[in-house]
């Protein structure tokens, strides 16, 4: 296991990036992009989450492959739940509609 120490400079850079993206996502939501609004908001959130996982949670530097397997599995299970549920529910009428 590598005892990797990341430089504080990188942490501060990531921090600034996360703050900038937070302001950007709040601002961009006020612009009408049609259906793209949701996609842009989720894309920005995913970039932020990825950066936190890779750098703050050290996944980029870990020599432990099992950590990556666990993360990949968790994301896979989550997508399985969300996508299979949506393929069902999006073809049903919403309760209260005729």
């Amino acid at each position, binding site marked *: 296991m590598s005892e990797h120490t990341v430089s504080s400079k990188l942490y501060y850079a*990531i921090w600034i990036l996360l703050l900038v993206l937070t302001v950007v996502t709040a601002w961009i*939501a006020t612009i009408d992009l049609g259906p793209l609004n949701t996609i842009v908001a989720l894309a920005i959130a995913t970039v932020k989450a990825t950066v936190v996982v890779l750098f703050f949670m050290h996944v980029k530097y870990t020599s432990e492959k099992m*950590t990556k397997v*666990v*993360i990949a599995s968790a994301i896979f299970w*989550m997508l399985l739940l969300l996508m299979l549920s949506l393929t069902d529910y999006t073809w049903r009428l919403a309760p209260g509609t005729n």
Partner: protein
Amino acid sequence: MSDSPVTIETHNPALQHHFADMEQQRNAASFGMWLFLATEIMFFSGMFCAYLVYRYWYFNEFAVSSTTLNLPLGTVNTAVLICSSLTVALSVQAAQQGKRKLLVTLLVLTLLLGLVFLGIKGVEWKEKFDEHHVPGYSFDVSKMAKESPIPIDGQRAQIFFSLYFAMTGMHALHMIVGVGLFTWLTYRAWKGAFGPGYYTPVENFGLYWHFVDIVWIYLFPLLYLIDRKPLH
């Protein structure tokens, strides 16, 4: 004594007897933490799934209800959590480098930021109580419906607010647990329990804190930013 065939190992006092060495102990703890976080992802996925289905069905109500949430406070709270993630990342580094005072300072800062987040969340919830936007007997969105450019159904709006309180509530509960964990960490760090040879609890509770931050990173756009375009 260098020619002695017996090598005397100096045990780290933090090494538990069922592990061969510190590295094995640290890897096992880290793996366990990641497995726990995987179960946490599944736990929150259930709520995200319910959210997605109802948002798809009742989009108008979700969009209009979302505009009643306090966007400036939500944005500030996101920034507060990001700052706390930075102090957590720096505290792991301080522990690795054996800087006890810096470690304690950063852990206390993290605690304070966590409490600021919970305080702001409390103010936001208070607003919702005052506006009768809390699901239940006194739920009332007639004012919101009157100002809405599109017709909305109050019962459907109630589902949005139920999910809002369930999701931010579970997130806040995780924050409260995190504050408890970091109080314990601060006490141990103050006692000098952590250093270059042993900092696993700082690292693993740090992972937990970052995870809770990531949940909020998704909750913020999904709850606050559904439709923030000016009314047309």
